[in-house]
């Protein structure tokens, strides 16, 4: 059973991750995790100390749990660039600061570190508003390049066809064929997927408007420490191999791509054909599982339909199962994850212990630690 320990500052609660029900468990591991949560309150998504929180928390956990595999995500610069008007110098300063944190982690732990940039950000050139269709367009503020189209009329098709900022419209059948979906995979897909041209953003029905969005990152940078990999799905197997002889840290640096990646790197493909991952859980899962993620929680789907009272894992965002075959779940040794990328670290990494900020739309509500396995003792 997986446990969630939520910390909302000066108050903690232990919950069953699957059912969301309160638990009274009190083991040395839980006490250790609670103490680390208490020691490292989350500063906030766009706080300048946010990335330092990732390093400090992970170093503390390493000291207490002695893992051989660490999965980190540094994201403050991504949130800041996405929602704040920054000068080029300010962006560079943030880039320097996050890699200083990566360097600090690397030097203090001596782990073999594999660093991945999730992709470049570019300014929003313009918005595409599909709110007035006869049918329904679904997209989110976190996925601005793709919009799912449901029940669109002929008039809608004509209207969409005349929008120059839309690069292509892909039918469900084409999508299934391109990405070799199995029959059951079509269930959640939208009727059509609209793809915006680079720099254009489908206007999301949410309150915060982005000022920068991910570029069409066909390739992302991977530090040369991983060796030669062609695709994002080749990385996890390589890490499995390294873990036989090394302590390994996989470090995701959000919002940084090949243009600004300061370490020696190789380019690896970040999708397939015209489809590239935007920074988010699908990209992490592709990396962690070594398989493309086109059909689980697909973009543009009416994912809110799955969020009824029967849905399990109420504290896991839109995930209602914990994905299997992730890096952490495959590894027999001890593993941890720490990230300030919202509440999906425990789903996409599968590590024994994960620490993540519990922030929604940049509101800082505290932290959550998840224990997937309790059978590996503390140091």
């Amino acid at each position: 059973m997986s446990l969630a320990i939520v910390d909302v500052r000066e108050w903690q609660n232990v919950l069953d991750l699957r059912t969301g029900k309160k638990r009274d468990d009190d083991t040395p591991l839980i006490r250790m995790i609670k103490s680390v949560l208490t020691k490292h309150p989350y500063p906030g998504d766009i706080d300048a100390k946010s990335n330092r929180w990732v390093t400090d928390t992970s170093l503390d956990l390493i000291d207490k749990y002695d893992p051989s595999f660490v999965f980190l995500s540094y994201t403050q610069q991504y949130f800041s660039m996405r929602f704040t008007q920054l000068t080029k110098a300010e962006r560079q300063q943030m880039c320097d600061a996050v890699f200083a944190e990566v360097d600090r982690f690397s030097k203090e732990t001596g782990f073999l570190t594999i660093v991945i940039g999730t992709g470049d950000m570019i300014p929003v050139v313009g918005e595409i508003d599909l709110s007035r269709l006869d049918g329904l367009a679904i997209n989110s503020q976190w996925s601005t390049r793709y919009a799912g189209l449901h029940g669109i009329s002929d008039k809608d098709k004509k209207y969409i066809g005349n929008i120059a900022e839309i690069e292509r419209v892909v039918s469900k059948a084409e999508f299934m064929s391109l990405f070799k979906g199995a029959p059951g995979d079509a269930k959640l897909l939208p009727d059509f997927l609209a793809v915006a041209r680079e720099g254009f953003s489908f206007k999301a029905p949410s309150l915060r408007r982005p000022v920068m969005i991910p570029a069409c990152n066909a390739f992302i940078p991977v530090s040369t420490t991983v060796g030669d990999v062609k695709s994002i799905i080749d990385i996890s197997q390589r890490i499995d191999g390294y873990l036989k002889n090394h302590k390994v840290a996989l470090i995701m640096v959000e919002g940084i791509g090949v243009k600004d990646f300061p370490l020696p790197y190789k380019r690896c493909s970040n999708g397939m054909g015209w489809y590239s991952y935007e920074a988010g859980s699908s990209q992490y899962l592709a990396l962690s599982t070594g398989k493309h993620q086109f059909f689980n929680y697909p973009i543009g789907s009416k994912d809110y339909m799955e969020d009824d009272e029967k849905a399990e894992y109420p504290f896991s965002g839109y995930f209602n199962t914990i994905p299997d075959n992730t890096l952490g779940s495959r590894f027999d040794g001890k593993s941890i994850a720490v990230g300030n990328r919202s509440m999906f670290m425990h789903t996409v990494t599968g590590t024994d212990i994960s620490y993540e900020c519990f922030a929604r739309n940049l509101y800082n509500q505290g932290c959550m630690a998840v224990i997937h396995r309790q059978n590996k003792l503390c140091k």
Partner: protein
Amino acid sequence: MTCTFCEWRCELDNGRHGVCRMYYEDGGVVKERFPNKWCTYNAMRIESLPFYHAHPGSRSLTIGTAGCNIDCQYCANAYIAKEDPKKLQASMYEFTPTELVRMADKMGCHNIVFNVNEPTVSIPTLLAVSKIAKKAGIPMGCLTNAYTTEATTELLASIFSFMNISLKGLSPDFCRHYLGIHDSKPILRNIKRLAAITHVEVTTPIIESVNDHEIDEMAAFLAAIDQEIPWHVFRLLPEYKMKEDVYPSIESVNLILEKHRRVLPYIYFHNFIGSEWVNTLCPKCRAIVIERFSLGCGGDKMGSYHCQDNTCPSCGYKIKIHGQRVDWNSKEAVL
């Protein structure tokens, strides 16, 4: 020309737009500057707004416009409510009332809830929406600060059949410093009136050492209106001008609330992840009749609904519920 929508009673002569910056005077009539313009439309669980005793389990189309008539120091939506409404217009959506109601249908929503800013700043548009929504059988609800004139309070009740009113504090000092208004008297008057004619839930954000000493007085005020009024006591999530403030102590606030639960059985304490005080207990036998998860600010969710025909399954006591429990996907549109 005086605008009489809210208690500021602003003069709109000479091109002035009032405290909320949303109205103007035209030929002796108060008109909206930006009718039919919306900052958002989203499908959300009604429990997350929060409404715990109205249309349980339903999917709400949440909407908002721009502007507000009071100046809360801790506003969670300041980037909409405090921004100059004119500056926001380029990024707003435009829907006629018919289009908005159609959107609720397309998104499989059972009701429409105005929850981002203050509905009082967009009364004519909301009146128009409510006419169409009523015809379509879609109830409307809202979150409001209730700093409205008596006439507007009646208008709000004609638009919205369920309301969550923010009772932020009582003392004139608190009102002046933290809300930018003179006092809470109009709000108290309106809570009393609205609770008599429509479904009302009340929300109070608690700021440690600032308004926690008023909890007893607020509880007494609510109990005098209706002992079964649902009261959402929020642990303040410091935002906007109070971002650096401390997060209030959960244990000490709950200690104060606990003694009032004997009189006010529907006191909830939430706005933080994993709260244990979000379930509805039967006032008579204390059985859990509705279970919920607290996912923090704007994220609550119903877990299980045990009531049978809105009564306690253990003792048959009638639980205060506005509307009926509905299935989340029961209105999912076939487009």
